[in-house]
């Protein structure tokens, strides 16, 4: 699967309070899109086009485990996030919600706002600014969840397997 879009650049330690305010925790996924990245740039939901990519520094998604953060970004049409590093729960939530997320510090260093970035999610190849970079590979277990489209697809597969085993 290929993601290709324009780059939106953010810095280090972007927190989930900035990605999605907590007072929207009870909102529907459709409503969340209007608040994506509001704490950093209130106009972000208007600027972002389907398939666009956030490129960020260290520890993106710090703080709360609110899953409305990746849900809002996904709802806004974001294609992927590439960062130098991610906060752990945010990373896990993105995998669970099927929002592509890659660790690739060299690509971050090369990326400029508005440039086009192209990501091959299977291989981890990142093309930006006329150069090619290799993102950190996913552990095989995470690839299993990613290939199920997230943790709901994975859970359905596990439940089906358990039902088969019980029936056998």
């Amino acid at each position, binding site marked *: 699967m290929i993601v290709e879009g324009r780059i939106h650049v953010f810095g280090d*330690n972007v*927190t989930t*309070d*900035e990605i999605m*305010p*907590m*007072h929207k*925790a*009870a*909102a529907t996924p459709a409503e969340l899109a209007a608040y994506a990245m509001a*704490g950093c740039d209130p106009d972000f939901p208007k600027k972002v086009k389907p398939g666009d990519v956030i490129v960020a520094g*260290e*520890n993106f998604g*710090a*703080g*709360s*485990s*609110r*899953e*409305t953060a990746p*849900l809002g970004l996904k709802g806004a049409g974001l294609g992927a996030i590439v960062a130098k*590093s991610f*906060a*752990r*729960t945010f990373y*896990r*939530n993105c995998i*669970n*919600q099927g929002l592509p997320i890659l660790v690739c510090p060299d690509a971050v260093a090369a990326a400029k706002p508005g440039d086009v970035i192209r990501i091959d999610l299977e291989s981890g190849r990142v093309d930006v600014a006329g150069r090619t970079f290799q993102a950190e590979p996913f*552990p095989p*277990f995470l690839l299993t969840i990613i290939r199920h489209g*997230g*943790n*709901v697809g*994975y*859970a*359905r597969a*596990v*439940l089906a397997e358990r039902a088969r085993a019980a029936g056998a």
Partner: protein
Amino acid sequence: MGMTITQKILAHKAGKDRVATGEFVTVPVDLAACHDAAANVVMDTFEATGADRVFDPERVAMTMRAYVPARDPVVAQVHERMRRFARRYGIRHFFDYDGGPHGIEHVLYPAQGLIAAGDVFLNSDSHTPTAGAFGAFAPAMGWSDVGVGLALGTTWFRVPESIKVVVDGPLRPYVGGKDIVLTLIGTIGVAGATYQVLEWTGSTIRALPIEERMTICNMAVEAGAKSAIMEPDEVSQAYIASRGGRPGIVFRSDPDATYARTVSFRGDALEPVVAKPSLPDRVAPVSEVRGTKVTQVFIGTCTNGRLSDLRAAASILKGRKVARGVRLLVSPATRETYMQALKEGLVEVLMEAGATVSPASCGPCAALHSGVLGPDDVCVSTSNRNFPGRMGHPDSKVYLAGPYVAAAAAVAGAIVPPEEVAR
């Protein structure tokens, strides 16, 4: 080569003799839980799995604590949906504000005897590591993970490395668990423990009462950590027993367990600290920010909303008044905390001093409910995060501190060393 307490819990749960750090394991959960802020996503996810029942209604808990009492029609519908869900699936531990116990799960569930040593606790919140004070593996978790956990009764983990944090020696007056954990976060940074567990040990930790240990474990994620843990001892096991909880399984780290690193502090070198706006690792001694004017002081939350915190605040506020222009908000963590504070006369002390005491809830910690900050506000808060906009307007400023420093700031109208107010 030996294993850490965290490795031993995960190995035991995975049915293995040993697990290596970096290995992925699937383990059964002892308790799966969610709160009202996460409930919609949790229930959506559970329903999307197609499961027709939860894995074990006896081992599921839900609590109302973020928007209590219901803030607006949107959250009122979340609460209604939670009640329907609890009825339909026979959820055993459902804590509504309808006369029974309720409040913030990090205080409520241990008090209800739901947390045991050696447990794997799956809960839709980043401050779940609080339960590490009882020797449980209690990682910060997202919301759909709990929805899936309700269906499967299992979850997966990458076995984490651990950082050993050693604190030895006596503490000075007015230095508590919050100062200890903030000092660590200031030392290693907000991403200093990413993917790792903070394993706390040392004579200072062993001498602390259980509530201050919970404060220390609570803020693991503010250092980026996956969880925090302390080896069970007579203090933690006595608390569980007093609450009718399960004895659990006591695991201890092997002497030759491998750690990513060790960080050590002398207890008597620690002083009261704050985290300056707007990251929890911008830690400074109170003396450095002495005189910073404040407009609001908030005492509460899963970090410092326990009875011992209200006692600490009351010890400063007794017979004193909040400074003019300062709003002191107090939010007990649970209904039981509130009732005990009433019976001890703490609520009277706080209100005589000028406090507004709100129902057991998260209060204004995440700008969810009453007490939201405006652009010119400067707040000292006993909560765990001071990110931009966390407690309201993005321009508001939040200093994190323990209950002594917070109460002293309310009296002085500015951040000051607690002993200056108390003497």
